[in-house]
């Protein structure tokens, strides 16, 4: 019990620090990929604290609540991860976090954030099945939904779930809102929806959304690491490698459109994951 408490605390405090740093490195590397010098590595933290110090303005007065629930549920999902709980429920909790933001974005009357929210919903429509299928593949291999049992499983999951891993990487691009799938909101504001989902969030609210991104990143990287759970450091290295891959993909793709994304994700993501899973069934 006490162990769990300590682990949770470390996760809650440590995740955003590492996540923020990773985002800083991301921005630096992205800059380098574009032949620029790039911002300091600590830039995300500067942004975060600056945002905390801004005047709080809002379009309606309970916007903050959605942001908080966006954050809380992301933390809850992270805790489920570090406490090695049910993977499937983790996905649902994680989805709750996103839905909070969607509802928050829809509750303000800005047309851009509303359309951004609609697009985010479409993204969920695209990636949710893949995430659930991934969980299912994990179960098929380990015989349990608990993350604990993945860690206990003697062989890295990647051996049995290579295609599922690929599908997950695919979805990761959507979840991290990287190009080519950055249409609900993009980290640089040059798109038709201004900032999409986050258009009407500013100051502290935006800071908290940033913070949630950091948690999200850690959760997703954690999930990647799970595929290589034995030994853990390989998992972490691969997770970082996957993140680098995302950065590169971000920089060599144009933004596609969401109808294409849904089609492609259901075909490629769901397809490959299914092939893998059916393979598992056929395997004696």
């Amino acid at each position: 019990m006490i162990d769990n408490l300590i682990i949770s605390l470390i996760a809650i405090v440590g995740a955003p620090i590492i996540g923020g740093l990773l985002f800083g490195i991301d921005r630096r590397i992205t800059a380098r990929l574009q032949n620029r010098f790039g911002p300091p590595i600590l830039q995300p933290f500067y942004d975060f604290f600056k945002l905390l110090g801004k005047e709080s303005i809002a379009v309606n007065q309970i916007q903050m609540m959605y942001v908080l629930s966006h954050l809380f549920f992301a933390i809850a999902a992270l805790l489920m991860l570090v406490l090695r709980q049910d993977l499937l429920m983790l996905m649902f909790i994680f989805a709750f976090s996103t839905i909070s933001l969607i509802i928050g974005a829809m509750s303000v009357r800005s047309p851009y954030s509303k359309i951004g929210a609609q697009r985010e919903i479409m993204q969920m429509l695209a990636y949710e099945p893949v995430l659930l299928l991934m969980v299912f593949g994990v179960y098929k291999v380990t015989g349990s939904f608990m993350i604990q049992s993945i860690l206990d499983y003697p062989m890295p999951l990647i051996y049995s779930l290579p295609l599922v891993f690929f599908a997950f990487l695919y979805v990761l691009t959507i979840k991290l809102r990287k190009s080519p799938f950055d249409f609900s909101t993009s980290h640089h504001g040059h798109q038709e929806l201004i900032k999409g989902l986050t258009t009407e969030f500013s100051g502290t609210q935006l800071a908290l959304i940033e913070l949630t991104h950091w948690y999200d990143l850690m959760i997703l990287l954690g999930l990647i690491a799970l595929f290589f759970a034995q030994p853990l450091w390989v998992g972490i290295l691969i997770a970082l490698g996957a993140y680098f891959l995302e950065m590169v993909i971000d920089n060599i793709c144009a933004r596609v459109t969401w109808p294409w994304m849904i089609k492609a994700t259901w075909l490629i993501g769901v397809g490959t994951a299914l092939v893998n899973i059916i393979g598992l069934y056929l395997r004696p």
Partner: protein
Amino acid sequence: MEGYVLALLALATLLPAFCAAICYVIKNRAVRNFVVVVNTLVLFFITWEFVRLLMGSNGSIRINEGSLPAHLGEVIKYLDVLLLGFIGYQGLKLKKPLIVALTLAQLVPVIFFEFFMGVHEPTAAFVIDYLSVVLILLISLVGPIIAIFAIGYMEEHEHHLHLAKTKQPAFFMVIIGFLGAMNALVMTNNLSWMYFFWEVTTLCSFLLIKHDENEISITNAVRALWMNLTGGVAFIAAIIIIYQVKGTLSVEDIAVAPVAGAFTGLFPIALGLLCIAGFTKSAQFPFQSWLLGAMVAPTPVSALLHSSTMVKAGVYLVVRIAPAFIGTILGDMVAIAGAFTFMAASAVAISQSNAKRVLAYSTIANLGLIICCAGIGNYVALAAAILLIVFHGVSKGLLFLCVGTIEQGIGSRNIEDMQGVMKIMPVTTIIMVIGMISMLLPPFGVLITKWLAIEAAVSMPLVLLLIVLGSACTVVFWSKWIGTVLTMSYKPKYAIENIPTSIKAALGILILAVFVVCVGIAPMYNALIDPQLKAFHLTDKIQLIGSQGGLWLTGGSNVAIGGFAVLAVFTIILALFIAIPYYLHKGKSADLRAPYLCGENIDSDLRGAEFMGPGEKPAGTLVRNYYLTGAFGEEKLTHVLNLIAGAIIMLMLGMVIR
């Protein structure tokens, strides 16, 4: 003891019937309201007593044929014929040959079977086990609340229609009678009696849908009638076959796990027919259209049909006989059919902008999931099925009542018109949003059952894929609806809406129920559902236990292989609930700015919905939700989906025959 139970039983069935009669005879509003309230209270009491008695018993409360008044069987037989006769008469009156034909298709076998075959009625006429009690709980708690809601609603409704003569007496009669029939249906152990109550619900629903007596409601009522009569035909056919094969009509004896070699011959077909009867009643694809058509009825009717009665009869039947086909090809096909309906209905719901139709499709989807779970038929799946019956009933009842209230408030049931309803009807809106969240998100029950269903469906990849795709679709239609009703862009002067007391009471009780069933999921599961599952004598290794404020799956060795601590997540929700009033209070209008409109807001009006358009003319902004009609359009999809669903059912029967 026996006598007391008998009295309770009589009360549960006959009191509603009696109250119904009073409602019809004494056409006085005050009396009617009084009767409805008394009926409610008595039903609550009965439910409570049943639970108490069941807890004290060894698994079920049984009432033998012998202790019933003599000739009850005879009476029911005659009533049966009378009922069919009445339906046939309705068909004649409306000049619908199809209905007459379907009635005859039942009447002939019924008369033949009941009067000429010399049927042995089973000894245990009524067996009330945990499953029955769960449904009684649902029927007798949610049903009367909807009746209470109807008091306020119908007043307004009739006011709206400018009726010369009120039709409320008939309305309340049918509604309350309906509850009695449902109660009897879930308690009886006699298949042919169940058939009688089944047909009573069919008739009641027909009368209720027809209530407004305009062209469209009559058309839709007729559609509901013939579809359900089709199910009735399947039912009576199944009864005859079962009696031929098994020589008994006792549900208890039928619903046992098949011994090796028993699942051959005609018996599986009978089970398949019963399933089809269940499909029609619970509006599975391709029989979904009657339930959608039923939306024309006044909202309490929809609420009743969707939450606690009618459609639940269908899934009840399937779950009830599920042990008989667990692990067989029939079970697999039922699971596929259910999962397919789940996916199909969820997908079509995306394209709907009519709130009630969205709810209807969601109902169909959830019933599909229940049936799917019954088909999968392992320990976890059946637990999911029964839990979902409860959660869905409570939440859906609530949602329909909310939509009804909002519809009367804003004069539209279109989701697009609900933008900003938060300002006009804040309380109803918040209740509705909680209701919707309870259909979609953790830690509420419906999601937990979806989670259980997915965890249970691991043995069937196709079913799993369908569930997974379907649940992605549910996210779409719920979240856009929630977002729409919550739209508000400035500190509104909350005009707390003025709604009739009865509606307030109904909404209040139901929202409480939503929370109670979720918070109390572990005890509820342990007390009511686990024993039932034990009684099914399932042989799965994976078990479900309720502890630590949540549900946990365990493998053979008591190690958790999955689980969810509901209470932990409730803590977060609670924290958020504390945050709401804080931020409501904190937001000063000085901090509130109009939304960004590319710099062309007409003025700094906080409503911020207008911008300066071309030619210096003001224009309003508006964002409509996406309905993806290109991909998920109802007209386009329905035919295809119906064909597929029909094929699945044909396949089901075909495979069983082989």
